[in-house]
């Protein structure tokens, strides 16, 4: 069986700096895979290449066998990739439910411009119900009408997850979901993610700094350093790898800047 996501030998350079150098990676259906590495290792760049915010200079990205490089972000979303962001990205001036509803309606393609004009573009009952179902899964049902600005960071991350889930992804990219959360919030988030995943059956590719979360949450994991994969395998094996330990201890903890 071929993997769900196949990243094959992708290289990406930014004005002379090689952010990704021949990186290959794959994720099978329903799997939870970690992607770790020190700051500036190229993790977020890899995410951007997978979802299409960036295009790699070389290499291939395939989802379920479909070649994605050079395809638009919206095409890739339709192919089944969802993602969350390291620096939380929410739509201001909307409620929690609206966030999910927008995503749901984009997926359905309901409400074209013309339908809007004739007033047939309003949300349908089953769309709202589906949003509420996902909100229920995430434990956000009570906050459905809450304005987004009032949420805590942890709840905001859940909304991001919910929004991504509405596109019915077969692969969910989580970019440092624990950043800015305390220990309890992190474990609650992991718990929720696990139960939602059990329900919906998508695969997760997780970029994370919190080693504890990676160990407890993922089955396999890849380690990136200076744009190359320095270790891969089952999470336990990787954690024991001396190369990995060296890479982690050898770098000073500085704020990662997104490329």
């Amino acid at each position: 069986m071929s993997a769900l996501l196949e990243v094959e030998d992708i290289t990406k350079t930014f004005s002379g700096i090689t952010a990704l150098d021949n990186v290959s990676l794959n994720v099978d259906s329903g799997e939870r895979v970690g992607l770790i590495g020190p700051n500036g290792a190229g993790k977020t760049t890899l995410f951007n290449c997978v979802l299409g915010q960036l295009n790699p200079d070389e290499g291939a990205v395939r989802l379920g066998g479909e070649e994605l490089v050079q395809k638009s972000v919206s095409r890739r979303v339709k192919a089944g990739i969802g993602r969350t962001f390291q620096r939380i990205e929410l739509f201001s001036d909307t409620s929690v439910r609206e966030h999910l509803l927008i995503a749901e309606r984009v997926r359905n393609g309901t409400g074209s411009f013309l339908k809007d004009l004739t007033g047939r573009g309003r949300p349908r009952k089953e769309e709202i119900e589906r949003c509420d179902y996902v909100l229920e899964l995430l434990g956000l049902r009570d906050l459905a009408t809450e304005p987004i600005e009032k949420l805590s960071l942890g709840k905001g991350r859940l909304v991001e997850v919910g929004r991504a889930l509405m596109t019915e992804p077969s692969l969910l990219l989580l970019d440092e979901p624990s950043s800015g959360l305390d220990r309890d919030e992190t474990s609650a988030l992991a718990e929720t993610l696990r139960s939602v995943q059990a329900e919906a059956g998508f695969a997760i590719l997780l970029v994370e700094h919190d080693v504890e979360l990676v160990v407890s949450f993922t089955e396999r994991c890849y380690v990136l350093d200076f744009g190359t994969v320095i270790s891969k395998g089952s999470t336990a094996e990787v954690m024991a790898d001396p190369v990995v330990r060296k890479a982690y201890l050898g770098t000073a903890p500085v704020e990662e800047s997104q490329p």
Partner: protein
Amino acid sequence: MFAAGVFEDIFTAILQGTPPGAVYALIAVGFVLTYKTSGVFNLAFGAQAYVSAAMYFKLRVEDEWHIVPALVISVFVLAPAIGLILERFIFRHLRTASAVSKLVIAIGLTVALPALFDLISGFEAVAGLTPVGIIENGDSVFYDPFGLYAFSRDELMQMIVALGAVLGLGLMFRFTSLGLSMRAVVESPRLTELAGVPADRVSAFAWALSSTFAGMAGVLIAPQFNTLIAPDFFNLVVIAIAAAAIGRLVSLPWAFVGGLGMGIFIALFKTFLPRWTDDYAWLDIIEDNLTPAMPFVILFAVLVFWPGIRHAREGTDPLAGVDPPPPAPIASERSAGLTMATRVFGVVFFSFILSLMFFQADAFWIFLVTQAVIYSTIYLSITVMTGLAGQISLCQGAFAAIGGFTVFQMFDRFEMNVLLAAVLGAFIAAVVGALVSLPVLRLGGIWLAIATLAFAYFFDAVVVKFSWVGGGNTSLLQGTRVPRPTLGPFDFSNDKTFFALAVIVFVVVSFFVVQLREGTFGAQLKALRGSETAAESIGISPAKSRIIAFAVSAFIAGLGGAMLSIHQENVNYATNFVPLAALFWLLLVVSLSSRTVDGALQAGAAFSLFDPLILRGELFAWILRSPDRLPSFFPISGKWRFVLFGLTSVQFAKHPEGMLEYGKRKSNARIDAWLVRRRGTGDDDDPELTDSKSDAPVEETTS
């Protein structure tokens, strides 16, 4: 083609282009300086140049002062003072505001400053009195160092002063500690503060300095113009932006080179194009029209093709996060009772206005109110573009003019029914809107705004001049006649029936705008406004949404422009649709409310009725029941509306939903709180709660 002496001609053109190029360079460098130190894309630079030039003109020509004191007062006192005031009272408080909101404020100042200066100083441009330079006999004594081109003394001064100033700035940057702190502030005001440098003071100094540059440039360039009027100076700024854009707005040396290059390029173009067109007749049209449009063509080309621009993000301080975020808009929800009450009031109010129109008003008032309604229709295009899509377009005037010109051409050539022609015009405007948006799709925020400004000027300088658009040069003022329509049994040539038609058009357009806003498209635009990255990640295509927004907005503007032309029975391009007029439209709409239909309606009323009703004292006279008892300070000059609405735009950064919308939400919250208290359930009147915002769409009446 390369006849003998062609190199001599090139050299001549270079000499000829250097003096204006030096002034452009001066403005471009000042512009970049402000942009870098405060993140303000200061379109008001032209207005500041105008103020200094006008002050100098007033002192030197009207009051016959000596050159030195006139120059000192206008350039070295007034100009930096304006810069300091702007920095201290406006832009210092807006560090964390988005680049777009700062741009809107700069547009406001562009409109407000010249009007304010004219009002305070009593200055009025007089045709026939031409500006003079900063040296005696500036335009009558010439020097010809190379035997190719004779520089006037004015031109020599332009070169010496401008080059000297820029050189001085360069030396200061390199060798003084103030220069060092300025370079640091440019990178990050917050980080600089951490190092113990008073960033505010450095930034204030930068404003004073760049404003002095603007004032100097204004005084230097003024002798080129026959009459001293503000729009000419605004054109200068557009040239400077093109120059600055070459250096991505951040490189001072590149801005300098760009400015100089722009002057030389234009001179070369003027020298050589006429020769080519001798051989190629089809180039004639380009020759006649393109020369005045060169700066805008260059600007547009730079924005679209210059490699750096696409990736240039708006300059933000890496430590901007330490500043508090702007306050959240106030709650827009209101109780059912209050909604009902507002609706009833709205219906009563508009019925009252309508009945006044049909039974009481004379032709004068019917004309003005009809105009208000039509302008409101045009302003709905800004509601779509800015309120819904969150983009600033400065070429709505061009879109509206397309509607007007289509009606004129279709009637003139084919005697087409003007209402049909109006709809056709709207469709043409929509197509043009979509086409304009295509090359600039990847640009966002201020770059998009500037690209639309370049298009507006290109339209103004070239497209309008084609006989198949504007009917040829001579007809611009009176020849573009348009009749009032008839549709089957309805004759709209009567003022009252046409008023009814205008109201119907407005109501229909508002209905569709509300449909869009509440439907999927509106939700997608809202998502894009909130976070483009996140919107993309759920499958929304920003490019597609933006094209649709442009097309819809242009359609509405085109329809409104056609209606306006039909109403005035003439396109009247020069008074209705020029680029500066469109800037004022934008200000009106965003300072009232760009998100709602009411906002557009109020902006239309403000545009058309504020002057006669308030400034000329009609309303006050009506309240006093006698025009004779009107205080003597009436009528107030119409320029005050530019000052008023220009300066109102300052609040845009804090309340992007608009002043009126903000006030409305606040009073709604207050009334609701008061009602709740009256009923004795004090729990809900928690200030935290009323200050938050809500997901509920803003309720409003659509007519």
